[in-house]
């Protein structure tokens, strides 16, 4: 079975994001970019499924600027087989991404799409659900465990009350939550091998999809500043600090 794994290039999780002075968005100049952490978990899961024999080929697809090739290379270094870049400098909204992914699914005919539950830049948590609706496929979101048997998948989901286990018929869209796995590190030999794996270059026009934004961002502002806390080593220091603050 072939797995399709979409991956997104986003601001690195550890970067302190700064809002542009004109409030039109966040400052991306000279900022470290990496693969969205949930996409990384999805890639890891796909590689593990292949290692277990449940999948035979892993195709990663990214929608973004030319540099998103680096993100695809990272996935290839983790073990994916080939990549597709749909190149655009436009900030594509979830619906546009879902339409492009639908077109890729139609061309590639994977047995499942395994993807992150959300991207940490927009935090929309929408693309997987939209893609399933557009395809008319079952969806299993927020996965913390995936088992594939024959033509169905058992997916454990993290829901408010605890864990819920679903059985979905394949093909399906499965979105990864944080606790699904701990992604591996990329080894140097695999990074070198990844440089030789193929990446197909496409554009949104190749799939006949209009990615013009439908939403208008009015303003982006910083959240209110929080007063920093402090760590204490032991009870004695805590008592000292409380006395200092005049509360005991």
């Amino acid at each position, binding site marked *: 079975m072939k797995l399709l794994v979409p991956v997104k290039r986003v601001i690195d999780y550890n970067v302190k994001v700064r809002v542009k002075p004109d409030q039109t968005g966040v400052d991306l100049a000279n900022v470290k970019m990496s693969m969205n952490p949930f996409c990384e978990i999805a890639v890891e899961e796909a590689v593990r499924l292949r290692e277990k024999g449940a999948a035979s080929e892993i195709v990663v697809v990214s929608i973004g600027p030319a540099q998103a090739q680096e993100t695809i290379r990272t996935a290839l270094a983790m073990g994916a087989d080939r990549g597709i870049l749909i190149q655009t400098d436009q900030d594509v909204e979830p619906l546009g991404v879902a339409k492009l992914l639908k077109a890729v699914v139609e061309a590639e005919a994977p047995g499942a799409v395994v993807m992150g539950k959300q991207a940490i830049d927009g935090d929309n948590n929408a693309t997987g659900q939209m893609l399933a609706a557009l395809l008319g496929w079952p969806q299993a979101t927020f996965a913390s465990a995936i088992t594939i048997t024959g033509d169905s998948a058992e997916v454990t989901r993290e829901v408010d009350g605890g864990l819920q286990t679903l059985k979905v018929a394949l093909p399906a869209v499965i979105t990864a939550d944080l606790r699904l796995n701990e992604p591996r590190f990329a080894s*140097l030999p695999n990074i070198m091998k990844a440089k030789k794996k193929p990446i197909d270059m496409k554009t949104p026009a190749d799939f006949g999809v209009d990615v013009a934004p439908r939403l208008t961002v009015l303003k982006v502002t910083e959240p209110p500043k929080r007063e920093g806390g402090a760590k204490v080593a032991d009870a004695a220091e805590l008592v000292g600090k409380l006395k200092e603050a005049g509360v005991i």
Partner: protein
Amino acid sequence: MGLPAGIDSAVIDRLKDAAGPGGWTADQDLILPHLVEWRDQWTGSTPLLLMPQTTHQAQAILAICHQNRIAVTTQGGNTGLVGAQIPRGEILVSTRRMTAIRSIDPVDDAIIAEAGVVLTRVQDAAREAGKRFPLSLASEGSATIGGLISTNAGGVHVRRHGMMRAQVLGIEAVLPDGSLHAGLSSLRKDNTGYDLKQLLIGAEGTLGLVTAATLRMVSRPQVMAVAMLGLETPDQAVALLHRLEDATGAVAAFEVMNRTGVELAVRNTPSRDPFPDAWPWLALVEFEGSDAGLLARCEEALGAALEAGLAGDALLAQNETQAKAFWFLREEMSAGQKPEGAAAKHDVSVPVSKIPQFLAAADAVVNRLVPGARIVAFGHCSDGNIHYDVVQPAGMEPDAFRALAPALIEAVHDVTVGLDGSISAEHGIGISRRDEFIRREPPTHLALMRAIKTAFDPHGIMNPRVLL
């Protein structure tokens, strides 16, 4: 000299006045955190904690102490590892309220910070200004500029950027008699006479109270890459270091950790061994530079090193989370030992080429003196500074091990000195290494150091039990 019982209460009142409102406390609950330190080796005592906020207040305090022959201990972030900042009856002067960043100048590449400013704040301020302050160490969230200067701290970027001494352009300090050494210069060239600030750097608080410093900033690297390598031997580490530096010219940090260190860290802290195989040694390499081709060059150099057999496996962090995970393992080398009982610690340096020889000889000594002891060797391979920690054998009584420790330390230091090394690479002498230092140091050196101490501090009031 001024022990608690001997201090006149009128003088105590004058000291409180000098420190100003909010600038002192005699409440032992409030003082306690200042009397215990990270390794739980010393618990101190003091009748009074003074916390001046301004240089003026600090001057008034030391003038009173000088006139009345009252001994003081100075303290910054209390992360020092040799006990020098812990008072044993002396008045304690803390810089915890001297926390202003007075100015930051991206044209002069200089930042003026008061003594109590914590290192991460200086790093952040430099970053905000589009620059970088190139000193990093595991205690950076608590260690202060005054403490870093007074210990001449090192850390992980010494080979490329130098120790704290290399970062200091100027110093403002209160001398032991209360007079001011006003030296907040931002000059990089100044050959007018003896360079007095150099004496205050690394003086462990024995020559004066540093109140502020001008620190240099460097340009911020555009490209950074962090790799972890799995090695069989320390010889590979030394060869690898030179291979990577020759090939890239961009090695900013090259840290090593032995298997036991990794195992204890993984067992006792939330860190993770990134390799599926249990490599006897790990090397963490950080590259920094500003040309776009650097990453590819690093990848090539690492690939070539693997092919040449200088490493068995190599990982390259693909994002900051992974880079942090590599560094986290390295930073937890000390914390990993804590739950395992007593330890005898060494902070030695040898010429880089002699690191493998040092490790072999020291291991032999340890295995002979305390069979079953667990050796955690890690540290700054790129400048020859190895933290060689010997953790007690599992199941031994900690006190039984502590009884063996002095002979062990002596023997490991004999090995170090025999290889032209130093028995204190970056932590200083303080109280824990004082006797040994005085025994090993040539008399001519000691005589000069004592003459310098007397010139600065004729009554010997500053950190009197420290260093000399």
